[in-house]
């Protein structure tokens, strides 16, 4: 009643909707970085949309199924292959017992979500099956998958069947250059006027250091913080503050050099000034960015952020309605 991992892929982890409620002691939300695609994959196979899936990053795993299963892949353009034969994205299909599921090369995006009818049945820890790598718990033994791991699968609901499809317009788009909307605040005032401008003027490129903890961006002009006598306890660099909590999506610029946007495995706090926060509706887009993809930051106000959030919610509602 399980799946055996033949090849683990680059960074394949078990993820679900996440583990809220423990950020105050440094345990982050975790969960699928691209929540839209994660939910779509689950709904395609008739799962509860919060069931645990495999998040496959850049290079997919190779798996052998020890029982018949219904699966679907959503998110990155990384086509599944059944015994070597190409299968569609955003469509559920049957995997017979003994068959091998692998993935083609990544053509767009960064993270594909493999949902299996019944869900990946690892233990629930603090309310979630998500992997938290830094804390080495959750998911499968608190870590990325390795060859020879055997993943337990839950009991499928009656709703799972092959051939369920999601129309293209309900999928997350995967452009190689995009805009990330930012609400400024917190320590934005610590930037010089010039840097407060160039941050939004420049085109930034995803650095190789981009993972579930945070995404680092480079190639924009470095940012200068206003000189000051540093407050007691803040540390000596002008980009330092008295260590504080970091919002998800918050942007910090250690030493003024490269902005880092924290994602769902965030370090919960630290001593670098946060100059703003990427809006909730754009966090899935970050999850699908590869190194060298381009982003421009666009300043928006709260009303625009909430309007974008409502649009995001409506798209997900359409996915639910289509696959109900």
């Amino acid at each position, binding site marked *: 009643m399980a799946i055996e991992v033949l090849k683990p892929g680059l960074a394949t982890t078990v993820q679900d909707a996440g583990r*809220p*409620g*423990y*950020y*105050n*002691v*440094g*345990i982050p939300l975790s969960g699928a970085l691209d929540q839209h695609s994660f939910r779509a994959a689950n709904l395609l196979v008739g799962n509860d949309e919060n069931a645990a899936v495999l998040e496959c990053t850049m290079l997919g795993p190779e798996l052998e199924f020890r029982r018949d299963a219904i699966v679907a892949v959503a998110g990155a353009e990384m086509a599944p292959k059944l015994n070597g034969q190409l299968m569609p994205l955003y469509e559920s299909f049957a995997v017979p017992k003994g068959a091998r599921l692998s993935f083609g090369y990544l053509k767009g995006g960064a993270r594909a979500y493999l949902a299996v009818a019944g869900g990946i049945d690892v233990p629930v*820890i603090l309310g979630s099956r998500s992997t*938290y790598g*830094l*804390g*080495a*718990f959750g998911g499968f033994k*608190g870590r990325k998958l390795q060859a020879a791991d055997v993943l337990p699968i839950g009991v499928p609901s009656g709703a799972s069947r092959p051939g369920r499809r999601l129309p293209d317009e309900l999928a997350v788009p995967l452009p190689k250059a995009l805009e990330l909307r930012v*609400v400024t*605040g*917190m320590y934005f005032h610590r930037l010089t006027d010039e840097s407060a401008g160039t941050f939004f003027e420049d085109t930034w490129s995803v650095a190789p250091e981009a993972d579930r903890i945070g995404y680092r961006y480079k190639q924009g002009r470095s940012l200068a913080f206003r000189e000051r006598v540093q*407050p*007691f*306890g*803040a*540390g*000596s660099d002008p980009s*330092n*503050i*008295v*260590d*504080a*909590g*970091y*919002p*998800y*999506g*918050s942007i910090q610029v250690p030493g003024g050099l490269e902005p880092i946007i924290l994602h769902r495995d965030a*370090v*919960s*706090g*630290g*001593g670098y000034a*946060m100059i*703003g*926060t*990427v*809006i*909730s509706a754009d966090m899935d887009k970050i999850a699908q960015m590869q190194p060298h993809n381009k982003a421009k930051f666009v300043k928006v106000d*709260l009303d625009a*952020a*909430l309007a974008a*959030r409502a649009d995001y*919610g409506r798209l997900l509602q359409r996915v639910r309605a289509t696959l109900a």
Partner: protein
Amino acid sequence: MNAGTARYSLGGDEHIFVELSEEMSLEAFFKGMAITTALAKRKVPGVTEICPANASYLVKFDPDVTHPNEMMKLLQQIERETGSMDQQLATRIIEIPAYYNDPWTHETLMRFRERHQDPNATDLEYSARVNGFASAQAFIDAHAGSPWFVSMVGFVAGLPFLFQMVEREQQIQTPKYLRPRTDTPKLTIGHGGCFGCVYSVRGAGGYQMYGITPAPIFDPEQKLPYFREFMCFFKPGDIVKYRKIDRAEYDRMSAQVEAGTFDLRIRPVVFSLSKFLADPAGYNRQLEEVLYGN
């Protein structure tokens, strides 16, 4: 710090960040504890995270349930209501065994010497010098001499930030490494800026390294008695007193940890901010009596 100096700011559409004071102080920390405790009691719909920090706090919530503007008004109202509260905290004081100048952090700091301000000294020697101590031993004695307040838990799971409970002129202050290390032994006792810390897991780090404790502080399997309630041991508001131990005691305690028989000395205490501020040294002696008395 006066009432009304708090700065309210949006962290996108799902967070509100409140800076209570630009600089670190126990008063700011206490104010944050009072506000976040009051907020938690209200069970505001949509709130998913309430995170007190050193001199600030962070709230995460679902803006579809409670509008960010409403949330901000509520937090400002709570700040006004808690302004005149008696600053007392029912907490616990904990003895943490500390093996200073141990071989493991020493090996690590030697490996990353080129990332340090002073490649020719150890972290202890450097920190002693920049803080005006005559020797590394005198520095260790000061580090272990006064209690420390857990003013924030985070960065990674269960990691305590510790604020030294002495007058500001006596507080240890050190820069962080010029470039962060890629490795720090688990349970390293470190220091950066005005904050101490205990690294809960192995990993990257930029704080000066002084020693190591045999006592685990984060354990997802919750094996030792003091993890009964939760996998992270420390909570904001805990008071820590280090006790110097040698290699033999470190090894003995490590064997107890391995066997699952290790436990910590923990005593309940009510901390009064005004009494502490009136006489830090005298109040710390009373805290030690609570810890070591019956």
